């Protein structure tokens, strides 16, 4: 053991320059994993902390109809329950607010919340200028508005506003308010007293929502929720929610995000592994003589292999520590990048869990990627000290290497699956890694065999350049595999990022519709259309909305097993549905079944949206039974749609989970909703809003121009983060591949020095190098880039089930970049021999 440790230290001391790339690969790999994981874990902790405050309570019972006496009785029983610490009720509605002093200013749609004295049960309402909130501020028709809304309406404290049928006095401006999850709508919020709310809201279709909020005693929130759920089960028309649901939802979003970030970390890690593998291989090749000497001096494989393995692990530990420093800096940068993108504060800094995970993963990657090269030590014969060239000796099948290779593949599969939190994604990654490595290996072998035959080449430069690809000591396979795999993962990452950005851009274009109208009656439809045409200059999209209650789902194929009641509740009973002949939205794709022809169908058909994480998602062939006002209909699911990921708060208004084929709902009672792009902010927009409010007082209009601007900003922030990750992965890849290719120079230096001694000019050596490295760069680039297409397609289709599109420009850039990188590094790594006298190099040899 003493020898192993001493030898490892001495070798590291002597070879630190050569091993710096090894060290760097680990530092980059560990650093990126730790920083990306730390960030998500910090976010998750923040979500846990903030979830109660965001929800303003522990458990909430809500309804969009006045409480039925039965539900009210059940809820009232809990007021004195030992599980409950406090409770309060909130009444909310969407309504229009208008400034009294400027009646010509356009009204703004807001979410009106009527609150009682106990509200909020968690967190506190913060007012601007440090003023303290007290419920008494709301009494006697007082109102609190968000500071942004105050600015928008040009209001100050003491001004009056019209809200429905009443006039309220502004008593304060809200800086920050808990309860984001209470009656969640993407609208500015205003607070009034609970008693004033009914008069302030217009009594319209689906206008009011009631929510009874409970604060549970310490540790009793889950018991409270369970009991409420049990007691309310026999009743209809309520919803039951918990802050844990919000936490879970946020955690789900974070998990998806973590998966994306882990993917980037994984790619960097594999690139790092490729670097480690290349460095170890070249290092061991250079150490052949030392290994042979050690074996002559009595060192058996345990001693020698142990010394170099200890060296690799020691480098891994130091590299990992550097990686942690690097990760600390990265979290600072990332926290800044995501600042404002998320609804909670992200803390910079590392978590212990992520740090330990990173070091563990780093050690495993080091071991896995360096082991194949280290095992070559066993095959080094001590005879090498007597006879330099032993290349001609035939090798038998090395079963140990094969077995270890298999173990390495399995371990890498486990590691990638763990990193990506998915066995399928792990399988795709490792399958592609191993498959591409095998293809590159075959290409390398085929190339060498082919070139050996092509002896009659017309010029010396060509003969030398091509000869370097197959002569003893060639680096053909090594460069092909390192660069090919590097190109694969860097290009795949870029392709995936481009697809992700495309999804975000689709949503950005949807945000182009910045005005929405709801509750248009059938006899108002034409007039609304004409008004919008006249003042906005374009025809609005108008769609019918029918309310349908889902009473049963029978599963295909035999329909004898209806969906369990609990699952049906989870899927949702009350639905706003529409009917149309096509999707007409490019952010949705049909993932199962086929969308109907644009003609009315003989039997009712529905298309259902697939939502990841939902307990039950209907499948093609299922039968959904709806209770409409007058009758029940059974509609067969003929297609399942999936929506692209991304931010889409505004487009949610026009999003229908269930769409009917035309022909089934036309005669049902229905209202209409409309979306269109309004005139730019100013007089025309204000005129349109006034005219709509005056002509169609029952129609709710929603102006999301500012909201769309916020979304655009968020999309840009996400886009920036995506770009940052992409550039980060690209730079890591280039750095690691540069090092891997440059490491192979040792084999070329001696030859170039001999050529120079024999009279070759710099130009000649450059040409020879360009031919050798050009062929390798091109082959590696084409193979890696082609494999990247397969990898991203598999990852999109089977890994994250997202739409995928070929972006040939990225693949072509991938090939060109690989070619350029390998040729440039090849030439520059021979620079030493071109600028220095050859004697030094020959002496060293």
């Amino acid at each position, binding site marked *: 053991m003493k*020898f192993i440790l001493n030898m490892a230290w001495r070798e590291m*001391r*002597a070879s630190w320059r050569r091993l710096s790339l090894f060290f760097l690969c680990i530092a980059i790999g560990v650093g990126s994993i730790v920083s990306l994981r730390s960030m998500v874990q910090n976010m998750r902790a923040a979500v846990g902390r903030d979830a109660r405050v965001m929800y303003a309570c522990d458990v909430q019972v809500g309804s969009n109809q006045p409480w039925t006496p039965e539900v009210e009785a059940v809820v009232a029983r809990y007021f004195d329950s030992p599980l409950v610490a406090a409770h309060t009720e909130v009444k909310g509605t969407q309504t229009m607010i208008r400034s009294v002093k400027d009646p010509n200013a356009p009204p703004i749609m807001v979410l009106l919340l009527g609150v009682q004295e106990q509200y909020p049960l968690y967190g506190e309402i913060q007012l601007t200028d440090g003023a303290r909130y007290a419920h008494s501020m709301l009494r006697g028709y007082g109102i609190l508005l968000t500071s942004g809304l105050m600015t928008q309406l040009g209001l100050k404290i003491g001004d009056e506003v019209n809200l429905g049928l009443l006039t309220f006095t502004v008593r304060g401006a809200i800086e920050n308010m808990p309860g984001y999850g209470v009656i969640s709508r993407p609208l500015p919020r205003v607070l009034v007293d609970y008693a004033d709310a009914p008069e302030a809201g217009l009594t319209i279709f689906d206008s009011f929502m009631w929510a009874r909020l409970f604060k549970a005693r310490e540790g009793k929130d889950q018991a409270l929720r369970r009991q409420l759920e049990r007691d309310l089960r026999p009743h209809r028309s309520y919803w039951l929610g918990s802050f844990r649901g919000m936490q879970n939802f946020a955690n789900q979003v974070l998990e998806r995000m973590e998966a994306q970030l882990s993917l980037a970390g994984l790619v960097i890690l594999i690139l790092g592994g490729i670097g480690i593998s290349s460095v170890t291989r070249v290092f061991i090749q250079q150490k052949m003589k030392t290994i042979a*000497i050690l074996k002559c*001096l*009595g060192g*058996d*494989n345990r001693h020698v292999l142990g010394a170099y393995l200890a060296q690799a692990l020691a480098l891994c530990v130091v590299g990992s520590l550097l990686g942690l420093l690097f990760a600390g800096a990265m979290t600072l940068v990332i926290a800044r990048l995501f600042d404002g993108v998320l609804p909670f504060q992200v803390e910079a800094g590392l978590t212990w869990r992520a740090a330990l995970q990173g070091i563990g993963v780093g050690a495993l990657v080091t071991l896995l990627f360096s082991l194949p090269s280290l095992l070559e030590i066993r095959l080094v*014969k001590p005879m090498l000290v*007597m006879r330099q060239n032993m290349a001609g000796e035939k090798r038998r099948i090395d079963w140990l290497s094969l077995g270890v290779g298999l173990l390495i593949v399995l371990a890498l599969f486990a590691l990638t699956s763990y990193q990506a939190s998915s066995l399928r994604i792990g399988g795709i990654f490792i399958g592609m890694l191993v498959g591409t490595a095998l293809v590159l290996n075959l290409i390398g072998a085929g190339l060498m065999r082919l070139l050996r035959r092509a002896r009659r080449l017309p010029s010396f430069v060509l003969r030398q350049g091509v000869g370097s690809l197959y002569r003893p000591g060639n680096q053909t396979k090594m460069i092909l595999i390192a660069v090919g795999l590097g190109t694969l993962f860097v290009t795949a990452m870029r392709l995936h990022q481009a697809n992700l950005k495309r999804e975000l851009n689709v949503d950005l274009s949807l945000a182009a519709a910045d005005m929405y109208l709801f509750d248009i009656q059938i006899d108002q439809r034409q007039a609304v259309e004409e008004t919008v045409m006249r003042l906005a200059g374009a025809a609005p999209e108008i769609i019918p909305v029918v309310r349908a209650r889902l009473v049963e789902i029978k599963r295909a194929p035999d329909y004898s097993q209806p969906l369990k009641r609990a699952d049906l509740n989870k899927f949702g009973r009350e639905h706003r549905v529409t009917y149309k002949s096509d999707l007409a939205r490019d952010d949705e794709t049909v993932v199962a079944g086929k969308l109907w022809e644009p003609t009315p169908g003989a039997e009712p058909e529905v298309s259902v949206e697939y939502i990841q994480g939902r307990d039950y998602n209907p499948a093609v062939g299922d039968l959904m039974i709806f209770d409409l006002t007058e009758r029940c209909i059974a509609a067969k699911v003929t297609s399942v749609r999936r929506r692209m990921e991304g931010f889409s708060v505004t487009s949610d208004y026009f999003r229908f989970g269930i769409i009917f084929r035309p022909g089934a709902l036309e005669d049902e009672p229905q209202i209409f909703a409309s979306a269109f792009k309004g005139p730019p902010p100013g007089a025309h927009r204000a005129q349109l809003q006034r005219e709509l409010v005056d002509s169609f007082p029952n129609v709710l209009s929603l102006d999301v121009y500012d909201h769309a601007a916020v979304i655009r900003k968020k999309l840009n922030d996400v886009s920036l983060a995506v770009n940052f990750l992409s550039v980060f992965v690209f730079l890591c890849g280039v750095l690691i591949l540069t090092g891997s290719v440059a490491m192979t120079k040792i084999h070329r230096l001696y030859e170039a020095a001999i050529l120079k001694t024999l009279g070759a000019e710099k130009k000649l050596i450059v040409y020879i190098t360009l031919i050798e490295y050009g062929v390798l760069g091109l082959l590696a680039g084409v193979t890696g880039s082609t494999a990247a297409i397969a990898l991203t397609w598999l990852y999109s289709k089977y890994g994250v089930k997202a739409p995928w599109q070929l972006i040939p420009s990225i693949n072509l850039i991938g090939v060109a970049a690989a070619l350029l990188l390998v040729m440039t590094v090849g030439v520059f790594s021979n620079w030493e021999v071109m600028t220095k006298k050859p004697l030094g190099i020959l002496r060293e040899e």
Partner: protein
Amino acid sequence: MIDLANVSKTVTSGSEKLTILHAVYLSIPRGQFVAVVGPSGSGKSTLLSLVAGLDYPTTGDIRLDGECITQMKEDKLARLRGVKVGFIFQSFHLITSLTAYENILVPMEIAGLPRARERAQLLLDEVGLRERGHHYPSQLSGGEQQRVAIARAFSNNPAILLADEPTGNLDSKNGGRVFDLLVKLNRDRSTTLLLVTHDHALASQADRVISLNEGRIVSDEATGRMADAAPESDSTLHTAEEA
């Protein structure tokens, strides 16, 4: 001490088989200093590497101290070398990443000998490189490097010392100095020394000189020194033809 019976070595070059050492019978008693001479390609180094267990013979048996090494696995051979065999090479073969002192230390560390550091320092003194112990091979002259190699070869007190043209890369002055050191240390420790050399003057200082040509032993002569030294046991030699 060293016994070879019917040892031959054949290598394959392309489709042709080439015998570089024909069936050799050789017995070298403990403490004897044997020089092997012959022109380039005569099989001297092959003989040496077979005796060291660096390569396997095509036919025959090799015994070191009564132990047959021809069927031994690589790792066991390595351990045997660590305990019984010292090496000196023409091109020194010092480990470039280690200092002179550490190069001497390595075999003792591998073998797990106690007081290795102390012993390495003593050996450095003995070869006259006390002040050069912290230097790397690249900072030493050829003669100094070979002295370090000699110290390393003696570090484990091997019973057998194998030297492959130890002065081949040195000028005559340095070569003479290194050879004298080698002989002195060998005599002090009564090591069995098998020396391969081109230099007949050096060979004449051995107890016994074996001449090889085209893979065959063409002569095996005891020198005057051997007669004076009165060997512990009879030495025998015969080629396959004689056998």
